[in-house]
């Protein structure tokens, strides 16, 4: 089903996408000293991507995002965990944060941690909202590439009649 779509809405949304993203990165960076931070920045970025998908479609949005949102979130979690665990290498407790000041601008490991949070929030916002934005039919709520990523081959529909069909579907992926 093809929704008729307003030209103005599309253009404005694309424009807004850039503006919101810039603003959300600004919020992320100044978060330690002023209102903002990883959560807000991440939600902003995530919502800008949702807006884009409303304007140009989920598939186009994913082309812009380039990476799978779940991978983005996992990367974020990895960044946050590693930045917390790193001080343990030289004997400091887990989650020790270091701060330095360069030319009046405070920089430090809290920012790395916040970037991790930011990435997780972007990833899950986009993934969760887009999850129902496709024709959903069991495994088919995922694109073929995603299916190979998340679904193991053992996963089968619960009832028998469909089984063969789904399997041929898988066979097609290959």
């Amino acid at each position: 089903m093809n929704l008729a779509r307003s030209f103005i809405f599309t253009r404005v949304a694309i424009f807004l996408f850039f503006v919101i993203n810039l603003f959300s990165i600004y919020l992320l960076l100044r978060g330690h000293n002023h209102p903002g931070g990883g959560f807000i920045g991440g939600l902003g970025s995530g919502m800008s991507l949702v807006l884009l998908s409303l304007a140009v479609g989920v598939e186009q949005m994913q082309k812009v995002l380039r990476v799978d949102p779940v991978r983005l979130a996992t990367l974020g979690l990895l960044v946050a965990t590693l930045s917390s665990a790193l001080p343990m290498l030289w004997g400091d407790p887990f989650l020790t944060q270091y701060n330095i000041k360069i030319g009046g601008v405070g920089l430090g490991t809290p920012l790395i941690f916040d970037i991790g949070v930011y990435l997780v929030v972007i990833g899950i916002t986009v993934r969760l909202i887009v999850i129902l934005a496709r024709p959903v039919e069991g495994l088919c709520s995922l694109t073929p590439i995603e299916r190979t990523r998340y679904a193991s081959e053992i996963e089968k529909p619960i009832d028998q009649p469909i089984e063969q069909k789904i399997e041929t579907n898988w066979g097609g992926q290959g």
Partner: protein
Amino acid sequence: MTAVLLAAILLPMLSVPLLVWAGARWGSRAGRVALVVPLTSLALIGWLLSGAEAMTERVVTIPWIPSLGIELSFIVDGLSLFFGLVVSAMGVLVTLYASSYLDDHYRDHGRFYAYLMLFMASMLGCVFSENLLLLFVFWEMTGISSFLLIGFLHDKQDSRDGARMALFTTGGAGLAMLAGVVLLGEVTGTYSLVALRDGAMTQSMAEHGASWDGILTVAFVLMMIGALAKSAQFPFHYWLPNAMAAPTPVSAYLHSATMVKLGVFFIARIFPIAAMLEAWTPLLVSIGFLTMLLGAIFALLSHDLKGVLAYSTVSQLGFLVGFYGMSNTDGASLDLLHVASHVFYKGCLFMVVGIVDHAAGSRDLRKLGGLSRRLPALTIITLIAAASMAGLPGTMGFISKEYMLKAKFDHWHSDAWLNWLPLTLVIIASLVKVLFSIRLVRSTFFGPLPSEIDEHFHKPSGWMLISPAILAGCCLTFGLWPDLISPALRTLSVEGLHLETSIHLKIWHGWTREFWTSLGIMGLGAFAWLLLGAGRLNRAGIPSWLRFDQAFNAFMNAIPAIAKKITSLTRADRPMDYLPIILGTIFVSVGSLIVVHGARLLELTGLRGDWRVSELLDPLRSFVLLLVAIAVLMVTTLRRWTTQLVALGTVGFLLTFYFVLFRAPDLAMTQILVEAATLILVLMLLSRFPRAAETGERESRPAATRRIMNIVVAVIAGLTVTAFTFVVATSKHAEPAGDFYLKQSVPAAKGTNAVNTILVDFRGFDTLMEVTVLLIATLGALGLLMRYRRTEAEAKAGPMGPPGMGVIHETDAERERWTDR
């Protein structure tokens, strides 16, 4: 020495995954591979024993959880070495036996040997433990591994029942033991057995006087519940015969030689500590000897070969328990002789039963007979072992029984019931033992060979005979030359447990009263056999009310039924009814607290008596409040989903106004963004529900009573929350927790946004966990959409519902690829 001991215990444990792999690869031949493990442990423990003429006690301690007083602390002394030898030597024999017994008719050989080695490791850990808590951990591990072994043939109902019964009985009683151990440890301040023996116990008793005797007695009784259940003493005797559903090697290992001896071992272990308590003798003597008699009688009345052996084990364990009970506080003697004698003949007989079962296809004494013609070697082995069980001269059982009677006679110097009762019971039980020993041999190997047994008969592998033959040989050798064991008994004697006497065992003591009694028992036994005859015994049976196992199973089966009744009584299976009950309970209880303490709470808020509502309400804020109230009311009353959703969005956006008023810029921004995301998400969901659902919902409304009840619950909840929030928010704190963060935000976290420093620095771990939870929720949501149920017709209809808002499928071809072709 530390390394050797740890290797002996850990090696079987480490071999577990290897054996699973070996079983998958070599099938039934994995048993030969598994044999390496107990052999190594045996060699290592033998090495520990070697070179020590008089065994000195050695303790190995590795700190584990020092703050709780738990240490990996092992003790090497006579008692632990003796049981360690029994466990590993029987492990060798049983593994050897099992490697022929578990032929290709069985499955999962790797799993079997893995469980067996796990069990052996737990047993070794248990007997070498010096710390009571460590001992308990291994104790429970033996329970779990025995559960796995009893239930090994888990496709049979009786295996499952037996395994469950053993686990619940020993595990449940184990909890009582844990309570006793903790009580003892907390009262005396140490969990170390050596420290307890060397004065911690007497010291604490001296310090606190007689009043603590009660506490120590409670601790002791609790520990004894665990120990007696493990050794299947009355009233826990029911689990052992039911555990016989296990494969026979398991029965021979666990249920005659090792695990059931753990209770006896534990009693011996705490003998130097607890024997001074008043409760020691009456408790152990009464339960032990009562069990001895009951077990013997049940053994006579059983018809299953394994049942006979199981009950006779119960009986013998009862004797051992009572034996420790009546030993005076200076120490016991020759206890290890009785244990060893029992291990030899009972392990042998279990293996014999396994062979008979294998060859004849039956274990029922009423159906068997005449096997001596087919299995002459086995008959000889059985005769020796059964003679040892009956206590005929020339066997180890005779030596054991002579000294047992001697101990009882020596003890009989006053008229107290604790003195004459044991002797009487021991004599009766020995008589019955002679009877069922005769019955066992006679009904299995002699008499006519029934035709169906003859048809089924196939010859067992010669390998299976090795282990029972070795055990029977031991019975005979040590029976004829008993002095061979004396040095071992002297070496293994333990300070505090054993009397310091120079032991010299002799087969002939002259015409003593023990000998006459022994002769009398044998003669009477034989006479009684002639009198009763096989036929009359075959018709008898154990009264079912004394077996307890049916009552236990009925109890176990009743638990889910009772739970179901309670569930349906509270309507917990119907959330529609249950939710108002839960919510009503919570809010009524909290609300009534607020009403009861209303005056005091009002004082806390700092309001004077003459306050007016108008002072507290601001026109602008009240206007916003009014708007929210209208929006919320619309959410509830409107009938169209989309309009409800718009009203909901209004509520969310109006709330940001309050966040701004509370000086929370971060929150206001987050709220706006999340509200937008929520709206889109719920709209996506609504677009997938059919329109008929929306209209149908309008038509079907709940009953009036239900609606009134819901409204009542909701009103109470609203009022409670209002009162609660107002009281809590206006109450003054001397020092709010937040002050710390305000003060430390710049100096410690180098950030001026106190909210953000809390999130990424002070409480960074919470944030880390939170983002983890978010990721998990996302993966869970994805998982929910991967599999679901549908009918064939629906599958044919293809993807359902309209696609999401504003979503365009780039091409029809692409879309086809995603859907079922």
